């Protein structure tokens, strides 16, 4: 066995151990009679899950929701990353931060904000439009598939943005210049050269969004359920929630189909990007990302971008600020303004569990994301550079826990961790987070790796550098945009992670999302918003700091 194969196998064991263990427990649970994983073998749960008469409609809704949201997320990300990375548009740093803000907001809060803006009874937007145009009925209804796609698309857009943006940033200007020399205009160059070369990143973003949408629960629950629109995640919830003896094995049986779809998507992705040499943009000849002058389009595009980001992202955040200041859920009015106070903020800041959860979440965010990104560098390298069947298995394995619906995977981890000494400690959360969200590190890094030519490594080795030295001195510096993106994706996810935390957190290891869920369960939206804003501020500071470090470290 050569060293590459040996390293691949080592990574396979590490990633496999992290991601397969909970899924195996869920697999046992899905074939086990009763509520635990150790019951007698049965197929009853699969039969019950897949003979449900509602399944046809659920699948239809799920397909529209997942594809609609993923498409919206990817297209928006493409538009934003192009303007932010490739053009001379002003206020780039601010636009970059705003573009990834939705991923720092707890999904449940972002969904509630949109309900306040677009509900058909007294949504703020609808009221304004009614007054402006004398309409009798509300123009928008958030409780619809369209509403679900809008909110989920916005929530997932930063994932797509953070995968596409580094690829945009590493684009070789020579390719576009050659196109223009041959007579193509900017738009033709974009369609025929830029986008095809970025295909791995765009596909990676789209696939990651699809997988995330399938597992999403907050939007289908807060927006879909009141509109009586059920998708797979809420169908699982509806199926298992009747009664007190919740059968997570049955939920796992439904979740297995999501898992299979995810694995198929990975295989398709690998097939579509098989000839990775086509997408190399950083070679030994040097590269420099080009800035396209927008000229007369600069001001109009600035306003379009500003307005888009204000309506889609800033406004919902402002709704959160407003909600944290009013004593209860109120429509904005002079009376509401007169009643504003800081009581919710005081309650949150004097609550010792909120402070402890803040501290634990910051620890998990920074430490967990760093460990996760180090592991991701090695895994992404193996997936891209060593294209063997084993590396293909490694890529599929990395998606296992990630693609399971959130309400189930936490229980899988609990069934696994309870057999280990780290159960009920913060370390169980740390390992669970990394195992589940490792694709957030691998995806942007894989896209970045694809763009770096092998010759650079080979040159380093010719000069006598060992593989680790080559990695440290040549590869990692060139990967800085990808590392920054991956780290941000992981850290912001860990800061607001709920699915695993709600099952694994215990006294002493509480995290912010669990505290947020507590407030949500009690309907305390004011405190929820205050804690949510604290979370957004911490995440934004971290993102700004890491982006700054990334810029400084960039070769």
């Amino acid at each position, binding site marked *: 066995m050569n060293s590459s194969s040996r390293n691949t196998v080592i990574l396979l064991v590490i990633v496999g151990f992290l991601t397969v263990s909970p899924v195996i427990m869920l697999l046992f649970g899905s074939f086990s009679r009763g509520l635990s994983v150790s019951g007698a073998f049965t197929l009853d749960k699969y039969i019950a899950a897949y003979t449900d008469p509602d399944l046809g409609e659920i699948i239809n809704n799920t397909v529209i929701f997942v594809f609609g949201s993923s498409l919206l997320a990817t297209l928006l990300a493409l538009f934003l990353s192009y303007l932010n990375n490739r053009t001379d548009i002003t206020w780039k740093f601010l636009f970059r931060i705003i573009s990834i803000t939705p991923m720092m907001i707890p999904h449940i809060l972002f969904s509630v904000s949109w309900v306040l803006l677009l509900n058909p009874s007294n949504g703020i937007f609808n009221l304004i439009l009614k007054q402006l145009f004398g309409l009798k009925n509300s123009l928008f209804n958030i409780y619809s598939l369209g509403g679900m796609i809008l909110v989920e698309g916005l929530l997932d857009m930063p994932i797509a943005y953070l995968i596409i943006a580094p690829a945009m940033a590493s684009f070789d200007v020579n390719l576009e210049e050659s196109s223009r020399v041959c007579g193509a205009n900017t738009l033709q160059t974009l369609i025929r050269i830029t986008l095809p070369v970025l295909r791995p990143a765009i596909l990676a973003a789209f696939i990651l969004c699809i997988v995330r949408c399938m597992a999403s629960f907050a939007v289908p629950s807060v927006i879909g359920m*009141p509109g009586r629109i059920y998708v797979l995640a809420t169908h699982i919830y509806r199926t298992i929630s009747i009664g007190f*003896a*919740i059968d997570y094995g049955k939920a796992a049986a439904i979740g297995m189909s999501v898992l299979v779809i995810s694995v198929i998507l990975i295989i398709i992705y690998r097939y579509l990007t098989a000839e990775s040499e086509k997408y190399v943009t950083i070679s030994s000849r040097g590269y420099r990302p080009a800035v396209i002058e927008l000229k007369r389009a600069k001001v109009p595009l600035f306003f379009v971008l500003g307005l888009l980001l204000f309506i889609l992202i800033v406004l919902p955040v402002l709704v959160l600020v407003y909600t944290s200041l009013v004593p209860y859920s109120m429509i904005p009015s002079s009376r509401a303004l007169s009643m504003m106070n800081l009581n919710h903020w005081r309650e949150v800041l004097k609550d010792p569990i909120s402070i402890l959860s803040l501290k634990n979440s910051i620890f998990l965010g*920074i*430490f967990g994301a760093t460990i996760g990104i180090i592991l991701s560098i090695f895994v992404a390298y193996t997936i891209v550079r060593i294209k063997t069947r084993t590396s293909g298995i490694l890529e599929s394995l990395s998606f296992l826990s990630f693609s399971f619906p959130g309400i189930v995977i936490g229980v899988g981890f609990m069934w696994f961790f309870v057999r280990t000494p780290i159960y009920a400690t913060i370390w169980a959360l740390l390992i669970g987070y990394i195992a589940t969200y490792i694709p957030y590190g691998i995806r942007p890094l894989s896209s970045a790796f694809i763009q770096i030519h092998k010759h650079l490594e080979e040159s380093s080795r010719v000069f006598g550098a060992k593989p680790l030295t080559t990695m440290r001195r040549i590869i990692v510096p060139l990967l800085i945009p990808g590392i920054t993106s991956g780290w941000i994706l992981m850290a912001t996810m860990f800061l607001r992670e709920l699915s695993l935390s709600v*099952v694994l957190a215990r006294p002493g290891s509480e995290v912010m999302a669990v505290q947020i869920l507590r407030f*949500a369960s009690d*309907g*305390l939206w004011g405190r929820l918003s205050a804690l949510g804003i604290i979370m957004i501020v911490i995440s934004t500071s971290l993102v700004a700091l890491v982006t700054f470090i990334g810029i400084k470290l960039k070769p």
Partner: protein
Amino acid sequence: MKKIKLTIIIIFLLLLMGGPAIGASKVSFYANITAIEPIMEAFEAKTGIAGEYTRISTDKFLATVLTEFEAGKLLADVIQAPIPVLEMLSEKGVISSYISSVAQTYPDWTHKNGIQLFGIEYVALIYNKELVKQEDVPKRYEDLTDAKWKDKIVMANPAIHPTTISWLIGLKENVFSSEEEWMNFVKGLAANKPMFVASFGPTPAPVESGEKLIAISMPKYIITKAPAPLDWAKVAQPLLGTPRAIAVTSSAPNPDSAKAFIDYWLSDEAMSILAEDVGEYVLAPGIFPPIEGMDKAEVIAIRELSDEEIQQWGNEFKQIFAVE
């Protein structure tokens, strides 16, 4: 470059030093009831025993406790959940037979082989008192079927939410004089197209904001969400709810602390905190939540429904409420 590296290393060291929080544990309490921190603090102040409260939602309660118990790692000394959950756990041997002497003051029907009922998760019609005129406030449950409430009601999904399913069945068995009358009520309610949410938690917000006018919800929100303009419809019929129960676990790591905790929990002092601060309806005699008229209301504990019954009725309600 060196400065940045140094800064990163310092941040890491600081995080590692102050990172994972480790707390001392004396009595561990798993509960689905919320906002009980004041009781935990009062218990610690009174006994010197530190209380650790782990909130576990009803949908994960059984899975969590059974998983830990079967692995020999149940961390809880005392557990609190709806009575059907504790009875299922009792069948698996999770519950001890400890009966608190303090419970003697409670009604006889509240003692169940080591499980002690202490409260009722009561349900009422909660409305926005600024937007609903006094003459329009329902006087009876049947008033909710009036067409004026169409698209104005919010409730937990009656196809899946066990407490709402139990409440509807409780109305059939305790309030309506015939099944036909009850079915007319259910169908009339469905015809008014209530908005469904996952549980009781999200029901008050749409009523506060005026998105909806009335909710099938819990009166405790009148206390916990004050000064929101919420009030309860003082219907002529009784209020219903599922009993809340508490028990010491058979494998309690701290059995003496567990007994001390449950004795305190059932005391008038703790029950007064629960009623006054959290708005809960408790079964300790003479203690009521400070909600106008609640001391005179008749509050009935709904019969315990088996999971099979809940599932069967959930499916039935799914059909009835699937009206367009």
